[in-house]
């Protein structure tokens, strides 16, 4: 809860700012948010990541199990999130919007990565035909960002608790 509150306070402190980075910490857990634009109602972010050294030695089974819980928790992004691929060698679980959002210009999806080492991160991508995928800003309300921070924190706690 501390991490979430600190994060929301920092967002308030950065209202009106563009292209800035917010970093808050709670012990070994560090929440980093790359902001493109911070408005009073919503924030356009290019990445939100919770980094911690506590996940240095977890195994892939724990990450997989935690990714399932994370996908169930993060049900407020308007796109359901599901685990897509697991890289046992690199010890990474990849989750994405399933299905991705489509419009005339291309496809958009959230991608969450849960890594041993470790981190939980969220980015949004756009894929247009004939080009590589591009990271695009995800516009989320302060409330949603607060929930994401809390859910990332809960995921780390779940992995360590298992």
């Amino acid at each position, binding site marked *: 809860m501390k991490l979430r509150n600190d994060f929301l306070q920092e967002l308030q402190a950065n209202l009106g700012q563009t292209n800035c980075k917010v970093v808050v910490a709670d012990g070994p857990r560090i929440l980093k948010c790359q902001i493109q634009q911070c408005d009073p109602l919503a924030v356009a972010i290019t990445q939100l990541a919770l980094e911690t050294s506590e996940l240095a030695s977890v195994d892939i089974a724990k990450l997989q199990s935690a990714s399932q819980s994370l996908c169930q928790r993060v049900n407020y992004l308007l796109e359901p999130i599901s*685990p*897509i*691929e*697991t*890289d*046992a*060698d*690199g010890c*990474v679980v*990849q989750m*994405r919007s*399933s*299905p*991705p959002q489509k419009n005339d210009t*291309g*496809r958009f*999806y959230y991608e969450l990565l849960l890594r041993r080492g470790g981190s939980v991160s969220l980015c949004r991508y756009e*894929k*247009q*035909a004939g080009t*590589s*995928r591009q990271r695009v800003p995800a516009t989320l309300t302060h409330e949603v960002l607060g929930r994401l921070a809390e859910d990332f924190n809960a995921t780390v706690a779940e992995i360590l608790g298992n």
Partner: protein
Amino acid sequence: MFLNIERDQRRFKQIVRGRIRENLRKYITHGEMIGRRGKDAVSIPVPQLDIPRFRFGKNGSGGVGQGEGEVGQPIGKPGDDPGGSGGAGSEPGSGHLMEVEVTLEELAKMLGNELELPRIEPKGTANITAEKAKYNSIRQTGPESLRHFKRTYLNALRRQISTNTYQPDDPYIVPIKSDKQYRSWNDVPKPQVNAVVIYVMDVSGSMTDDQKEIVRTEAFWIDTWLASQYQGLETRYIIHDAMAKEVDEHTFYHTRESGGTRISSAYKVCAKLISESFPVDDWNIYCFQFSDGDNWGDDNQQAFDLLSEKLLPATNLFCYGQVESPYGSGDFIEALRKQYSEHDTLILSEIPDKEGIYDSIRTFLGKGK
């Protein structure tokens, strides 16, 4: 004697083949329409062929110069009848389908004509020989099914003449056991150009069943074409996510893993398979790889090293087909383009959907290698 039925049958077959040729693009892109029938033939549903026939009118419904009208009165048009009722039907038309069997050889010929595929020039010196049975000799023993009728009766006639038992007025010839002659075979060594097709498919979590269906359809047509070009065509299958393994055909098409994508793992297994089982000098080796191109970032360089050192020098063609996943087409094909822009045995093709299969096959097989 020439029977009319044979001519009719031949004409019927021509019509059927014509229908298949007309709709070949549809059959190529919708692989589910084609069912296997044994090893050498497939069954293809074609729309019911209407046989021309007389249509009779109603008896006693009048004819020229009959009816109630006066001379010079215009005839009504269809639909003018004020008492008519009913509109267009809501049921679909009765477009019955009839399944016809076509040999794979014939299908390959149609494919070749449709896509204007050049015939393949095999590499190597055809130094593999296969024993082939040829019926070119006669023996005294054998199964009755191989009995040589003419020779047997000639022997019997000779014997009857030489023993004075043949009566020209009553010319019965009855062969006995020692008269019987049977066809027999010899094994003839025949030079053979052998080919192996290695299919590699990404079965990671991002490859859905739709993408696999595209791969299955495309592989069927590639197999059909290559089998028509080579006598001894072998097929091997490799699947991979972050790990790769060689599997059988059923597993190849029906496995879905959730692992990450490491294309280099498949290249490693492929290179090992070639080095252990298919000497490069004796075999025409074809690799067809299908993936959504979502390779995990750090793996590309490792994959390129294997491709450059082990696979491209060993294969006639290395074809990479990138099928589009729900998340779009990945970046691997672009990385390949940048890395191997001048390599003419590496063929790249993007397959956005089923309709893309047609062009992809032409891209892959249009080189005649």
